[in-house]
């Protein structure tokens, strides 16, 4: 607060207060405080010496009442007030202004507080929103990641299952091929129910143990060989289909050729390898291989040459060629079972 009382003004105001009524020092202080709404709060250390000075000058006098000094104005004091009446009016106006100044001050003060609070809470609100959004976002991301992880696991399982199923499917195909072989002798029922030594095929997957053999593509020569065998099967089938119905003679001829070819492959390509585990191979292997390779033509020849059947059989034959072509040559020694069964 700027000095409320300029030079000599406080003295004048004290006289004015005591002109209204005789008062003791503390009352004067309180009146000053109230008049200025607490903006100006004179201390007793300011007021009492002033009152004492005014008394010395003969403007005031005091009575002792219950040990307290009650100040009252003297005629000399009133004279001074009259002399400075204009000044007193100015002072009154200034004080009034400073009182309405208090209202302004209060307003400014509150406004300032409110403004900063508003800003603070606006910021905080925005921050909360950001965090909430962030946490929702994080949650969404977590959910998404979990979902991805689950999907990945499912895919993995699916892949494993599929590779297992592939093995089984091959097994089935073989059975199909075997059935066709069986059917040729005529005992359809027996063949379906039969092929009883399916157990022998149960450990089909153990074929994977063949040294150097890999199921997965990209395993070099084996993969290429698979492709080669498959292509051969396809081409053979294509040739047969081109020729139309396959007569009994043609089938015999074909079997002869294939056996020849297989024989040559055995002796010329795998010759040295063959020497090691020879025993009984010449009997089992051709039967097995021929059986699976012959399946389709055999069926086509013996059954009705309906296109649907043919396609179906062709498919199964293709599978069986693909599946059995690999193990075929190796099957020779240790797995004569199925072949012998025919």
């Amino acid at each position: 607060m700027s000095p409320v009382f300029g030079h000599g003004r406080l003295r004048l105001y004290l006289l004015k207060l005591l002109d209204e009524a005789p008062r003791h020092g503390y009352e004067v202080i309180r009146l000053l405080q109230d008049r200025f709404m607490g903006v100006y709060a004179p201390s007793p250390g300011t007021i009492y010496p002033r009152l004492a000075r005014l008394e010395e000058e003969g403007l005031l006098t005091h009575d002792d009442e219950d040990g307290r000094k009650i100040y009252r104005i003297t005629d000399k004091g009133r004279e001074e007030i009259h002399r400075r009446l204009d000044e007193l009016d100015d002072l009154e106006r200034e004080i009034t202004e400073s009182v309405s100044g208090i209202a302004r001050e209060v307003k400014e003060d509150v406004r300032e507080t409110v403004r900063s609070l508003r800003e603070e809470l606006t910021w905080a609100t925005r921050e909360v929103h950001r965090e909430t959004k962030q946490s929702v976002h994080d949650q969404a991301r977590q959910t998404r990641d979990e979902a991805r992880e689950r999907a990945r696991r499912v895919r993995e399982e699916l892949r494993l299952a599929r590779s297992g199923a592939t093995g089984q499917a091959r097994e089935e195909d073989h059975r199909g091929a075997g059935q066709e072989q069986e059917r040729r002798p005529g005992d359809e029922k027996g063949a379906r129910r039969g092929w009883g030594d399916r157990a022998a095929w149960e450990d089909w997957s153990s074929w994977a143990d063949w040294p150097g053999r890999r199921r997965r593509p990209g395993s070099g020569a084996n993969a290429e060989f698979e492709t080669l065998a498959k292509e051969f099967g396809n081409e053979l089938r294509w040739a047969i289909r081109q020729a139309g119905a396959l007569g009994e003679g043609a089938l015999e001829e074909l079997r002869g050729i294939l056996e020849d070819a297989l024989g040559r492959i055995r002796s010329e390509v795998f010759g040295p390898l063959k020497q090691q585990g020879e025993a009984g191979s010449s009997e089992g292997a051709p039967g097995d291989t021929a059986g699976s390779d012959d399946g389709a033509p055999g069926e086509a020849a013996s059954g009705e040459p309906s296109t649907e059947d043919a396609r179906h059989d062709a498919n199964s034959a293709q599978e069986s060629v693909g599946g059995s072509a690999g193990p075929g040559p190796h099957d020779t020694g240790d797995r004569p079972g199925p072949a012998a069964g025919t």
Partner: protein
Amino acid sequence: MARWTIDQPTSLTFDGVVALRIRLVSGSVAVLAGEAAPRLDVESVSGQPLLVTHDAGILTITYEDMTWDGVLGWLRPQRHSATVTVTVPKDCPTELGIVNAAVVVSGMSARTSVKSVSGGITMDGVTGSIDANTVSGDVEAQDAGGEVAFKTVSGGLTIAGGSLARLDAKTVNGRIIADVDLAPAAVVQTATVSGDVAVRLPASASARVDLRSASGRVETTFDGLDCRRKTGTTSVAGTLGTGDARLSASTVSGTVTLLRRNPPAGQERPAVGTEKEGKRR
């Protein structure tokens, strides 16, 4: 009955005021609590002269042509303007009717009722009960206490500090901001159509909370409240502490935010308040 017609700056003192009624159009009015003799300071008057009566302790400041009931008549274009400061005991009930004057009320502890069209209302350290109605005027309060009721169309309500026993605020699109403590068993209710609501309570607050918004967001920094999002309502509900007080907010499209005030920030404001209080009294 004492009666004054005031057409120039004047100061009046009264021997006792038990109730205060003021009707003003524009300018500004301040009602300050003081322990000294009740006092009226008119700093400026333009247009019509003010009519001041002091009857059976009831101090009334109004205009000659203005009846208590003819409020709508005030809305006619007119040039009534006055700057008035009234100092009364703090336990004096006060009633103000304002068109667009700025209102400042400080330190009153009885019932303070303000009706304003577009004038802003500023309150400092007002306790007891506050009842404010505005069309578009804002209410800004600092260190409020007791019961606060506020109704407005587009005015905003801001309460910075204080301990409330009751807050009942209704706005259409006015924003409600309150940074307060809750008295035991306090009831804080806010309802807005599109106005945002932001309430900050001390971390130690104890209240049953129910905040809802039909299409706006409802968010909180308090832990342990249940946030639900459904079609048609977003809500935050639950119990803070032992749930002594009640806090509810509902809005159609506004955002409701319940913030937690951490102790350091909480200690700051009272300190400011007491310093100011000491200076003024």
